[in-house]
Each structure stands twice: as C-alpha cells, then as structure tokens.
C-alpha cells in the first residue's frame, strides 16, 4: 500500500499537527517580502527591544531591520543568514520569547 494511501486513510486525530506561522512567505533582504510580514517582524522585534521604528513603521526592509535581525540571530545562536522562513528557527525563537513575555506582563 502506498504511503499516500495510508495518510489519506488515517483518522483526522492522528494527522500531524499543522504549524501555524505568522509569516506568509520568506523574509529577507532582496526578496519580494510580503508587507504584512515585514510589519509583523518590526512589531515583534520592537516589542523585544531590538528594533526602533522611529514612530513610522513602513512595510519595507530597512538597514535598521536587517541589522536587528542579524543581531538577534547572532545573540540567540541561530543561523545568521538575515532571513526568516515561515515556521523556521528565527520566527519560532521570536514567537517563543514573545509568548512568554506577553503571558507574564509586569513583574
């Protein structure tokens, strides 16, 4: 029996969980970049104190954002490629930090 048949016959409760990403597509300097993805990334890094939007968050990659991503990847021991893949290690690291931080607001 072929593998896809097995999967199609598996009950929904046994299907592998779908990972939900905040990103629609890959982010990186020189890539098309979805504007919503850029805005999410800026807001996330800003909340972590790693990015300064100077009060005007436009949906494009600027040098400050590229530097912030590179610095974050360096400091967290992640692959330093300046890119975020949907569900990749950089996005996941950011999400885990944000989740913990926002769940425990205040001291």
């Amino acid at each position, binding site marked *: 029996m072929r593998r896809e048949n097995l999967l199609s016959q598996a009950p929904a409760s046994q299907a592998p969980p779908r990972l939900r990403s905040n990103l629609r597509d890959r982010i990186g300097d020189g890539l098309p970049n979805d504007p919503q993805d850029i805005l999410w990334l800026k807001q996330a890094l800003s*909340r*972590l*104190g*790693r*990015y*300064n939007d*100077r*009060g005007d968050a436009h949906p494009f990659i600027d040098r400050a954002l590229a*530097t*912030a991503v590179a*610095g974050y990847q*360096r*400091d967290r021991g992640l692959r330093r490629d300046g890119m975020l893949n949907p569900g990749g290690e950089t996005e996941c690291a950011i999400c885990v*930090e944000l989740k*913990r*931080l926002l769940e*425990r607001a205040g*001291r």
Partner: protein
Amino acid sequence: MTAMPIDFGDTILRNNAGNYFDLIASVFDLFGFNDAAKKLRYYRSGRGGSLILDDQEMARHPIYSESVDLNRTRFESGTFTGRSKTKEGLPIEQKLLAIPDGGSARIDDFWDVNIKKSDPSTYLNFGRFALKSGGDFEVSRNGDKFTWSGVVDHRLGADDKKNNFIPERFDFNPGQPGKSQADIAERYGAAAPFDLVYPNRQRVDAQVVYDPTPTEEFPNGRFTVERVDWRPLGEGPDGRGWWGRDWDPFATNGKLEFDP
C-alpha cells in the same frame, strides 16, 4: 522549632504523622515522582536548613529554565531599554540619560516569575514557587552608545514587602493536603521544613544605542538593544558554580549533603 518532649500518646501522634509522609513518599516513587519523594524524605529527616538542588534534577523540570529565559528576555526588553524601574522605583531611563558622555553608573534591577501551575512532576516537587533574577550592572556611556556589563543571579524565592529576599521553602501551608499531619510531625521533631536552594549566576554584556528622536510612544527618545552576550549559567571565576554575594548556604545548619 524545638521538638516537644513526648509521652506515649504523643509518640502515637508523631509516628502516625511521620508514617503519613513516608507512605506518600512511597506512592510518589511508585508513580515515578522520585524528585518529590526525595524532598518528602528530606522533610521527614527533620534536618531543616537548606537543600541544595542539583543540575540533573533541575533539568527534569523545564519550567525552571523557561522562567530563566523569560527573565533574560525581560532584562533585554525592559531593563536594557530603560523601560523598567529599579527596586527603589526610579525609572531606569532617567538614570541612563543622567550618565554623562564618557561616564558610567551602577544600575540594578530584578525580575521575578511566580510559577503557580506546572506538570504533576514539578508541582509535587516544588508546589507553587518563584524565581527571582536580580541584576547588578555597570553602565558606561560613549555618545549614543551604552554598554551594560554585570551579573544576574537567578534564585528560587522572592522578595517580601520589605524587599528582603526569602528563599523558596518546602513546607505545608494552610489549605494544603497534609498540613495537619505536617503540624504534628514538626511539633514532635519528626519533620522540618527547609529551604530549596539552586543559585545560578550569569554574566552578561549588552550594547544599547540611544535615539533621542521623540515619538508618541517614547517622548524621551528610545533605547534599542544592538547586542547581548549572556554567558553560561553558573559560570564562576574558576569555572565552578558561583553563589550570590549576599547569601551563604552554610549559614544554616551546615549540613548540605543528603542521600535518602
């Protein structure tokens, strides 16, 4: 608590209370909650004082490292960016801006986590517990660049209302199962509460840049973290664990080794 002199009736009460905890410890072992069983046996030993926890045990309770990670994020996003306040209530942002170019200042801050819910293995081992991460830093300024350098002590416990650090204690509080048995056992010297100790010191260096441009959210300008370097937990001057400066684990009863 000094043990009361006992007579025959008291002996029965004492033995029943002690047997209660011995039975619970055996049940914990049966279900694989070995860390919790060990705590109960130490409690039953009546030694009191402090019990130093080891790295292997803490690795079995991931919520500890998650809480340390959380407090590190808070230092980065709250302390280093000037958004929080010192324990005296002074805004860190003001202290930073008061540093002259080429000057430095000492800044301290802390973050704590109250863990009220955890998996059964951790809850039976620690109950509700708190983690306090206290940071002590030297901040130097060079133009719009601020360099933070210091240490953060991660300790089980929390400050009381007078800002005195109270270590996490293994005991039985009103409303907890076993409280009545605990009162009897402790009264007759068949058990004693003790402090849970697991200090970890961590060195950190951070580079922060200041942008004086006022915005609606940051009217005094904004501090942004450019770089942070957290050294490994527990790294001491000679590679061994490094106790907090103001805490001496040997100040209690001097008995730290325990092998049930």
